[in-house]
Structures are given as C-alpha cells and as structure tokens.
C-alpha cells in the first residue's frame, strides 16, 4: 500500500500538573494514498492534535511524520485556528495566500463568492460568529488547490444551507483530492471516506471498512 501520510513511532504528550497526558503513544501508521480517511474518537481522545501533527502544525515528542513526495496537504481547517483574530478576513486571506504562493486576488474572489460574508470580509475575524468563521475557514481552504484537505469539525457549527453547499463542493473536490476528516457526523464520514482510523487509548486503529470503523467507534 502506498502511503499518503506515514507515521513512524509517533508519540505526542502534553504536560498537565506534572503528569504526561499521552495523545499518541508509539503509533505507526501508513495512511493510504488515494483514499479519504475519517478519524474517529471520543471527545478529548486527541483527534485534533493528531490532525495538527499530520499537518505539521505541531511536532511529535518522538517519532516522525512524512508526506508522500510531491503531495501538498492543507492546513487543518478548524473553527478557531490558524488565522489572526484581530485582522480582517481579507487581510487574513491575503497573508495565507502569500504563504502558500497563491494569487490572493483569485482566492479572494472565490472566498467572497463562496462564504457569502458580505461586508464582514473587511472586519476582524474576532467579530465573526462561529458559523461565519467556519464558512470563512472552509471557503479559504477549498479556494486553494491541495492534494489532501484536512478538516477538523469545521462544519459542525455551519447552518444547514451552507453545509449542503459545502458538501457539494467536497463532492466536486473528491474527484481529484483526498480528505482527512475529523467529525462526529457519521453521515459525512460515510459519504466521503473510504477508510477509518479510530483513536482510543493513545493508539490508532485502522479499519478498511468505514461501517466497521463506525461500529468500533460507537462501542467506545
């Protein structure tokens, strides 16, 4: 199996009151290329941290994480991460586009059209509601072309209309890119993922069948 993302003996822990709280402990995994992956786990299991590690936004305490050569992975799209809260949507968009070497004007047109933020695009992100932030974050990421998109519960607070629109966009992107989803919405996992990892007790368990993975998750 060719791997999109390879985790080699990865350990990640946080220190809390003098103790180590392990998120991942000596985890090795080869996330398959060409398949969209769901990461399931109970609240606090460390799914978001795992996605951050995959995105290289965080470093493991031990072990290494590698992407397949030539593959570009997005940042982990969540609601409260990765942008500058006191800066406007437009300026955030500008700096992130430049970081990724994209033409910010083209990205701006797509985001403006997709997120439907109106005049809020020129207001600081801190003034956005969580739904607006999720719209902005989602629109920003899909406006850029990646081989693999990482989603961390980004749609959980969006309204039904935007969710539908987002799902249509994901269906369109699925023809040329893959996804890593962290979501508690099993419908999304079933619709877009071809395999599942269940995170439990600092270990990642792989399921080739999505329904088997969901069953395992529900039994936790």
């Amino acid at each position, binding site marked *: 199996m060719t791997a999109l993302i390879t985790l080699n003996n990865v350990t990640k822990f946080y220190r809390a009151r003098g103790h180590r709280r392990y998120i991942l402990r000596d985890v090795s995994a080869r996330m398959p290329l060409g398949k969209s992956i769901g990461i399931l786990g109970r609240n606090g299991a460390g799914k978001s941290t795992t996605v*951050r590690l995959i*995105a*290289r*936004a*965080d*470093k493991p305490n031990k072990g290494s994480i590698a992407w397949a*050569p*030539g*593959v*570009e992975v997005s*940042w*982990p799209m969540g609601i409260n*991460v*990765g*942008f*500058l*809260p*006191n*800066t406007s949507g437009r*300026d955030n968009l*500008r*700096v*992130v586009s*430049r*970081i*990724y*070497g*994209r*033409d910010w004007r*083209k*990205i701006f047109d797509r985001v403006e059209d997709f997120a439907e933020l109106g005049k809020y695009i020129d207001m600081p992100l801190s003034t956005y509601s969580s739904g607006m932030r999720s719209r902005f974050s989602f629109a920003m990421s899909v*406006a*850029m*072309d990646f081989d693999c998109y990482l989603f961390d519960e980004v749609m959980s607070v969006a309204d039904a209309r935007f969710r539908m629109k987002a799902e249509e966009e994901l269906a369109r992107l699925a023809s040329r890119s893959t996804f890593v989803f962290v979501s508690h919405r099993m419908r999304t996992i079933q619709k877009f993922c071809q395999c599942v990892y269940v995170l439990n007790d600092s270990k990642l368990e792989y399921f080739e069948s999505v329904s088997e993975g969901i069953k395992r998750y529900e039994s936790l």
Partner: protein
Amino acid sequence: MEDRKGLPNKPGLWDGVRVQFRVIKGLALRELASEFGKRGQGLVFTFVTPMLQSSVIAIIRLVAGVPAYGGMEIFPFMICGILYVRAFTLMNGYINDVVNSNKGLLYFYHVTELDLYLGKFIARLSVNLVAGIVIYIVMRMTGLAPPAEDPMYLLLLLIAVNFFALGYGMCFAAIAIFVPTLRAVNRWINRVLFFTSGTFFVMPEIPPGFREYLLYNPLVSLTEWTRTFYFMQYQTAFGSLEYFFEWVVGALVLGLLCERLARGHYDR
C-alpha cells in the same frame, strides 16, 4: 482550479529556500500593511515622531543655554541620537511581541518563529531606512542641517543597529517563552539603555567618573560614531566601532541560537 506551484517530488535545498523567501515576503508585506494601515498615516508618524522629539529636546537645550557640543548643529545632533536609538528600542520591542501577536500563523507548517522575526525585521528595517533618508532630505531642504560627512557610513550604522536589535530581541523573546517575566525586565533594560545611550549628550560632556561606565553601553559607541560620521567638527575619542560591531555580531549569533533552541516551544 488554482494555479498552484505544487511541491516537487524530491524537494531540494533551493526549493526550501524559495518557500522560505515566499513566506518571509508575505509576512513582511502583512507587517507593513498592519502597521501603516490603508491610508499610510503610520508611515507619516514614522518620520514625524523622531523629528518632533528632536525638536523638543533641541528647543529645551537651546532655552537652557546648552547648545550642542563643539559647535554641532542642534537638530541633526539630536537626530543622530534619536533616530538610531529609537530604531533599536522600537525594533527590539516589535521583535519581542511579534510571535505573540501572530501566533495564529504558526499553524501553517511553512511558518516558523524565525520567519515571523524576519518578516517583522525586514518591514521595520525598510521603514527605518526610508525614515532616515526622508528626515535627512527634509533637514537639508529646510536648512536645519549641513550635509553629512559620510552618509554611506551613517546608512551602514542604521542597518547595523537594526541587526543588533533583531539579535537582542530574539534572545529575549526566545528566553521569555520559558521565563515570561523577562519581557518586563527587557522593557526596563531598554529604558536604561536609551537614557544612557548618548542620545541627548556626547561623551566629552560627561564627567570622567561616569563616562567609563556609560561606555559599556554599546549604543554609546553608536551615537558617538553617528555624530563623528555626520559632523566634520566632531571626532569621537571615546566610542569604539569595533566594540559596537562585536555586540551586533554577538547578539545576532546568540539570538539565532536562542531562537533555534526555543523553536516549537511556543504555546500554539
């Protein structure tokens, strides 16, 4: 879809450098935009503030009957102190805060703490250079100042003091991740450095007993030499350029070392 440049199959050193340049350029442009706003009012203040400060001190000195030492013109005398020492204190302050105020950008894997420092540094350095040149032109056009003796050396010193602040600021910023009270200590040290830097005086005006202590402050050597390079009639017998550049190089080496050791320890 988007015209992305994509990643090469086997990224080499040059690819990494290219990405790093792109990131730093993006961050520097953001810093310039956030600092000066859409109407550029911040840019105007960058020129006006040191000129105002210099004017106030110059007037106080003239009213008190203490003109600049050795027949130097009072306004450029003050500018030679304020412009350079202000560049140091401001840059140092910005470098100290830059990671904290851009923490969200560390979420993008291309961006490291060093990129944030360098983005801010490039933005501020360009502003300080433009400010220096504009102020010089204004002083010359209004007849407030004679032509500088060695403008290229003055420019070199302005660049050097910015590098000094970068290294010095990175040291404090990196160590402050583990010892947060160091930020407050840095602010106090900054004040002491400023008031003892020779911004308002030259060394011959200081009693010998104090002078030997003041000379430990590398900014004293800086201000002594900016005045030496500006005025034909002043040749410093106290400041040492070697001593100042030793500090510049030492601060940069130590700053880069501290940054590398502290990288990734920032609470993201």
